């Protein structure tokens, strides 16, 4: 398949990173699409958890919010929100946490709180929601993000959720026992943290993407892994699954007349 958008490539690359036995805490937007594409293709056994308390959901359309009714109707079980955060997230039962970001730095630290000063913000963003504890309680963290210089920045304005901090063993020094961000999937590339510094390095470029395109849309000097791959393009099955899902979703969220 050559006829696909960068966003589709991003979603499908993210979907591929998920395994059949993963237990995945899903955020809204690209993470939700990626998780459900994984479920509908190579990972039918994946457990998707939304922070609304729905465990093991299998929605036919993507939810607009993390608490749409279909998440509950198709779930194995729906628990209270305090239980979700206590037994399931803090309890260490989630293998993958999927996060988005308004600002991201090269160590996987995320800001979704404010642009500018916290007390007098230029833009007040929604805030962290579940992210501060998702980032430290899940086994590992996958991040999806559309590249842009204002999103991938040298220094984020606010640490909504902690990635690798200043890099290296910063997580361990704070007593955090989980792996943190292990994967960043953008519309242009796949990034993984350097084993030593924990800085995100590009390990795979999506088809047709150049190093220049990656650097132009990234606010820090991009580093590349020694062996750089090209991301395999979406298969017909992957792309068809994603597009069908998005078509069903768009139809479902229109106002009925």
């Amino acid at each position: 398949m050559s006829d696909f958008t960068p966003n589709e490539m991003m979603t499908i690359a993210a979907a591929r990173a998920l395994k059949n036995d993963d237990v995945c805490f899903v955020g809204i937007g690209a993470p939700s699409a990626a998780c459900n594409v994984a479920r509908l293709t190579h990972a039918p056994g994946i457990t998707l958890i939304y922070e609304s308390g729905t465990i093991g959901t299998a929605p036919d359309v993507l939810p607009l919010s993390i608490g749409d009714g279909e998440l509950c109707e198709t779930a194995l079980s729906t628990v209270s929100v305090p239980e979700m955060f206590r037994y399931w997230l803090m309890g260490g039962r989630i293998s993958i946490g999927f996060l988005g970001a308004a600002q991201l730095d090269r160590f996987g630290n995320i800001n979704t709180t404010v642009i500018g000063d916290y007390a007098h913000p230029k833009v007040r963003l929604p805030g962290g929601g579940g992210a501060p504890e998702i980032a430290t309680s899940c086994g590992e963290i996958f991040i999806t993000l559309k590249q842009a210089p204002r999103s991938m920045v040298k220094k984020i304005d606010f640490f909504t959720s902690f990635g690798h901090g200043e890099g290296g063993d910063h997580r361990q020094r704070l007593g955090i026992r989980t792996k943190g961000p292990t994967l960043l999937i953008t519309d242009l590339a796949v990034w993984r943290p350097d084993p030593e510094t924990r800085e995100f390095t590009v390990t795979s470029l999506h088809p047709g993407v150049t190093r220049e395109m990656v650097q132009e849309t990234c606010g820090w000097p991009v580093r590349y892994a020694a062996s750089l791959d090209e991301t395999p393009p979406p298969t017909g099955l992957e792309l068809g699954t994603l597009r069908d899902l998005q078509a069903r979703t768009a139809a479902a969220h229109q106002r009925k007349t």
Partner: protein
Amino acid sequence: MAAFLSLHDAVAENLRPGDTVAFEGFTHLIPHAAAHEAIRQGIGDLTLIRMTPDIVYDQMIGMGLAKKVVFSYAGNPGVGLLRRMRDAIENGYPRAIETVEHSHSAMAQAYEAGASGLPLAVFRGYKGADLAKVNPDIRSVTCPFTGEQLAAVPAHRPDVTFIHAQKASAAGDVLIEGIIGVQKEAALAAKRAVVTVEEVVPDFKGLHPNLCILPHWTIRAIAVVPGGAHPSYTHGYYPRDNAAYLEWDKVSADRDLFAAWMQDNVLAVGPEIFASRVEALK
């Protein structure tokens, strides 16, 4: 002991200016009708608690009724930002508001602690997060067994909690099902709990023993408001009006458009309008 009241009286008798109040609902069962009644009655100077402030607090803030908001995610779910709340924080319009910001985990556990009569919630959280630097209510305790530093936040103890539920029984017991969120905890943490329901049924006989039920002696007042969660939804009754959430993004983007919308859709109408709003969704 739960009294069956009109929504007007349920709000008037239980919500006072200056109160700390939670209108809770996690996407599902958001008590829009109760919030609109509070807006119509112009009850102000409120401290609003909610995990996901959402449209309903955007409206209350936009109408100038909030002095403080305690929250963990201030967005229009799946759509974007809360534009009236932004206007208040960024520009002090129509008044400045104080914000106390937490994570979802902290908020959920603060309700849980409130329901448990405890002064605080203790949990593993906020590690490396800047919220702990800007919210003095985020502190720590040291585990006397392991020496680990754990996060501590004060329990939520609202003066009043409003929730919406599927059913009340004739005795005034309340049933909540589907995505149950933090409603049980929010109701039990409050000094006074007020519930709007879709309908009243004789009793809950024959239902599963482990369902989420609030006994009548935990509730002050019940008002029957069919459709009272719209544009949120009531599992088993009507779906979420996702188009209304998308529309809100436009309404709330403009101060005058917002004011006109509130006049037409909240101030000039009564709770009975909610039934008609969900009719087309069923």
